[in-house]
């Protein structure tokens, strides 16, 4: 329970001013531009877009600037902004098979059609601080191959053709998914709703949960079947046109985790999948999402639900960092009346406790 309190208006106004000054920092250093944030803090921009669930690099850069680099605060700003815009429609499902690849690797096969393409990755860096970056200066330009990278088939399709991997097919008549930004979450949540929730979920939360599945809290034995990153076209079918048009392109990261599955009475042993798809270059998030997607499929695959990462309500209710930070941070609101009542209660209990103590203590004290 909260109390309406008056006062503090001037303090709040001055707090804003202090915030603005601190955000700007030392004015002898040049102010950050959005182009600099987009260009040089690109992975932070991608994370804010993914968890903010809005693909707009410029706005994400602004949010990061405004939040002084506090990514979760920036996600909140982006989510708040999106509520001011009308929904104009939905896209056709993006075709990640036709992705214009920037990176594509598989941990299950060495030689795959299209090859292992490293792209820009931190995987092979030594994680030593580079003091040359601190000094600034020119950087080496990227190597350019003589011919472009061709589109490559998804590795899961190669495995699928042998029947070793459970096929992913749309449900009968390919229904439109429910949208948890428009309707309340209901349990049990189907896979479409779960994937939407995970795609906008907090990276740290999903990373920890994914990690827990690997350490034994859910029996998964995953392989990174394929990770691909690049750009895909976005197509919509406006009601007034009646045909599909491309409206632009977005960068995404896709991860297909392949998991052993012992089979059941109705299904032969085969590999099953966990799927991750995220805006931007967010590989760690896509991998964690794929692990958690697979663990949440426990029930449909007839596995025992024993670990947190397999529990729908636990995962889906706690994955959203805007909701989570809102509820945690609401504890800062005045709880004066609540606390008064608890104070009274604790005093009464203490009095009762004291009264119940054996008399001997009193005598001893008196003596």
């Amino acid at each position, binding site marked *: 329970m909260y109390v309406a309190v008056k006062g503090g208006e001037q303090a709040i106004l001055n707090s804003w001013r202090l915030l603005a000054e601190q955000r700007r920092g030392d004015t002898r250093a040049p102010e950050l531009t959005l182009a600099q944030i987009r260009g040089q803090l690109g992975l932070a921009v991608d994370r804010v877009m993914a968890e903010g669930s809005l693909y707009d690099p410029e706005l994400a850069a602004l949010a990061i600037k405004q939040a002084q680099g506090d990514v979760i605060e920036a996600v909140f700003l982006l989510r708040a902004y999106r509520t001011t815009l*009308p*929904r104009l429609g939905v896209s056709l*499902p993006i075709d990640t098979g036709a992705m*214009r690849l920037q990176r594509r690797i598989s941990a299950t096969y060495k030689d795959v059609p299209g090859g292992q393409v*490293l792209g820009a990755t931190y995987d092979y860096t030594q994680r030593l601080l580079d003091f040359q970056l601190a000094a600034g200066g020119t950087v080496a330009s990227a190597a350019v191959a003589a011919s472009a990278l061709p589109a490559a088939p998804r590795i899961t399709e190669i495995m699928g053709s042998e029947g070793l991997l459970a096929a992913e097919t749309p449900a009968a008549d390919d229904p439109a*998914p429910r949208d948890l930004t428009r309707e309340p979450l209901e349990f049990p949540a189907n896979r479409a709703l779960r994937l939407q929730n995970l795609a906008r979920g907090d990276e740290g939360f999903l990373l920890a949960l994914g990690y827990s599945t690997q350490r034994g809290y859910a029996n998964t034995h995953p392989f990174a079947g394929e990770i691909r990153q690049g750009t895909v076209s976005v197509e919509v079918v*406006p009601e*007034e046109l009646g045909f599909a048009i491309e409206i*632009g392109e977005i960068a995404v990261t896709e991860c297909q985790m392949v998991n052993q599955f012992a089979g059941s009475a109705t299904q032969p042993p085969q590999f099953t999948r966990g799927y991750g798809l995220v805006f931007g270059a967010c590989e760690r998030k896509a991998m964690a999402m794929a692990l958690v997607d697979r663990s949440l499929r426990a029930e449909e695959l007839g596995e025992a639900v024993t670990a947190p990462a397999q529990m729908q309500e636990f995962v889906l209710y706690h994955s959203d960092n805007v909701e989570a930070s809102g509820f945690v941070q609401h504890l800062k609101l005045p709880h004066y009346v609540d606390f008064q009542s608890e104070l009274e209660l604790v005093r009464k209990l203490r009095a009762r406790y004291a009264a119940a103590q054996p008399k001997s203590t009193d005598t001893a004290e008196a003596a």
Partner: protein
Amino acid sequence: MSILAQADINVLETACSPLNVLTELTCAQWQWLRSPETGLIMVRGRAGGTGVQFNLGEVPVTRCALRLQRDSHLSANGGAVGSTIGVAYVQGRNVRHAELAARLDALLQEPASCERIHTHVIEPLAAAQAARRDAAARKAAATKVEFYTLAREAQTPGNTGEEP
């Protein structure tokens, strides 16, 4: 429409700057059917790339529609004035981008201007887009791993050739 939607706005403005295209764009009579409006499109994906549809997240999109009215239209098909409608759906929040794309969409449907717009606007934009994608794809291609198998040392006496 796809080329126009995916063009960089600055490149698009430049492409429209040749005099005959500009004249076309400004002299024709335009009527807004839907003035530019920015909203959101929910982008969908599929589980496993091919399975059930799910909502991935939203992209901002700006759309508009206008009608091209001019006298020449009467003689062109002898029909009613104002039956050419230009429509644009463009990713992002740039109103000018959507407006230019819609105008060009209308002009592209007109026999009188179609060819000129194609030559001066669409083709250069398509070429720029292809070049941009090609450059990115060639940089990625340079990071493709070329595996090679280490040749064993030539058999020497004492080396049984057994796997360790």
